[in-house]
């Protein structure tokens, strides 16, 4: 098994996380920052999934004889990810809602200009 094969998911996950962080760090537009958050979330979720993922693993159901528990895909991370997605969506929704209100108040979404609270 090559490196890429066994770590492809991890590389992807960390790639997404880093992209997300980069977007949050360098972008000024609130919407883009929120997109960055979303990418970060996705990366984390992908990471969680890949923790429990087994290439060519079976579903974690003893549906027939002879299925070894070692070859099953771990179901717990999937449950976790479901929860995490829900939470992520909630945050996203709240963030977008706030973004709309912020735009109404400030007339801009540039976070460099929204600096009334500082020091």
């Amino acid at each position, binding site marked *: 098994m090559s490196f890429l094969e066994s770590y492809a998911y991890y590389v992807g996950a960390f790639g997404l996380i880093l992209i997300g962080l980069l977007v*949050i760090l360098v972008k000024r537009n*609130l919407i883009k*920052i929120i997109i960055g958050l979303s990418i970060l*979330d996705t990366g984390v979720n992908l990471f969680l999934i890949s*923790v429990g993922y087994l290439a060519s693993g079976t579903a974690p159901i003893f549906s027939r004889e002879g299925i070894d528990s070692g070859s099953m895909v771990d179901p*717990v991370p999937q449950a976790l990810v479901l929860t995490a997605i829900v939470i992520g969506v909630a945050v996203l929704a709240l963030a977008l809602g706030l973004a709309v*209100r912020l735009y109404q108040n*400030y007339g801009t979404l540039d976070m460099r200009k929204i600096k*009334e*609270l500082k020091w």
Partner: protein
Amino acid sequence: MVSPVLLIAVPLGLAFLVPLISLVSRRAAMLVPVVACLFNLVVAITLMPGVLDQPVVEKIGGFPPPFCINLYAGPVGVLFAALIALAGLGIAVYAMAYIRTGPVDRYHLLYLLLLVGATGVVLTGDVFNLFVFFEILCISSYALVAYMGNKSGLEASVKYLIQGAVGSGLLLMGIGLLYGQFGTLNMADIANRMGSVNQVSVFVPLALIISGLGVEAAIFPLNAWLPDAHSSAPSSISAILSGIAIEVGLYAMVRMIFTVFGATSILMFMVFLGALTLLLGELCAFAQSNVKRMLAYSSIGQIGLILFALAMATSYSVAGGLFQLLSHTLSKALLFLAAGYMIYRSGSMEISSLHGMGKRMPLTSLAFTIGAFSLVGLPPFVGFPSKFLIVRAALARQQSIFTILLGFVLLGTLIEGAYFFRVVQAIYFKKGSGETGRSYAPAVALVSMFIFAALIIFVGIYPQPVADAVGSAATELLDRAEYVRSVLQ
């Protein structure tokens, strides 16, 4: 025997009842958080004597612990639950009068959710469960910060949200890594297996989790959201954020370090971090002219002090840290509540607008003064015994590095004293401009402030019961083996 599940389940249920009740009567909806908190307080207090002897491990779904999500109601958990209920009760009473505009029913809903999240965090014995409750806490607080819908509230909320979301991403990643290594999410189980793996590989999740929780706990470089959020939120929310939310974050962090990871090598770093947080918080607070922002920075300083004490990891110091946490909750809540009505009357958050408040709002000013004195650590208020314990713990280490750090910590206290005394003087002795008529805060708000003030003085004079409770809580936090044993027995 009451079950600790009730502490979470009942408020959660009541939370979703709030919109329904408010259809019937808006006044009744206001009472829901009060009822929930009262209930929680009663439950926590009835649980208290029992858990001091033997922690209650509540197994959800009947599985034995490693396989189920369990609640662990030890002295720490119940103490925190009681504290959350108590602070929640006081602030809920206050909010009945204070929150008059906006979607009131949703305020109470979110407020209850926040409390549920906090209670869940302190009671749970499962790492992912902790994350979930943590998110409940965070999301409801994002929303509550923006409750007023004004410019600064929205801005603070967005910033809080972005940082919080990054933090929870890191936390979730840390949890994922933990799961990847141990294949379990149960804290006790992880703790049990901690010795069996390479310590370096454990360190990465530890760092991620500390950073993730540190955002909510507001330790030094991660706390940029706090002054914004605390100063822009409605005062009742500032009080609960300052009094509960960051403390809960700190609890989660300490629980992770002490119980789950047993990471003693990082403690020294945390001690320094605590002292640094304290000093920076106080320095920033000193330069503020906005009273709520000053209080917010002071919260950072207090968190630093608590972290300093907890990270020293002796039974005295942890007890002192927990005591300080309690005293900070009471004092800071009182300060925010008092400041809330003063700001409401004067229409400005500037300290200069509080001049002459001592005559205009005597009782509220008195409450503010008591809170300030307690926070500085003057006897006979509650801040004194906690500070006494911390100083004692630091000196009991008998190492010069701790004595020097203690010197810095006390320097922080001195700065804190300087700015609080300045505000107290402004309230009482500076001549206010404009109206001088005497006015009082609404009766319920005064009642809530009175509760806090009375507690501050009572515990300050007679700290023994609280000292006993925090003493056994400290034992629980420090004794990993006992924790593992009582969960996995």
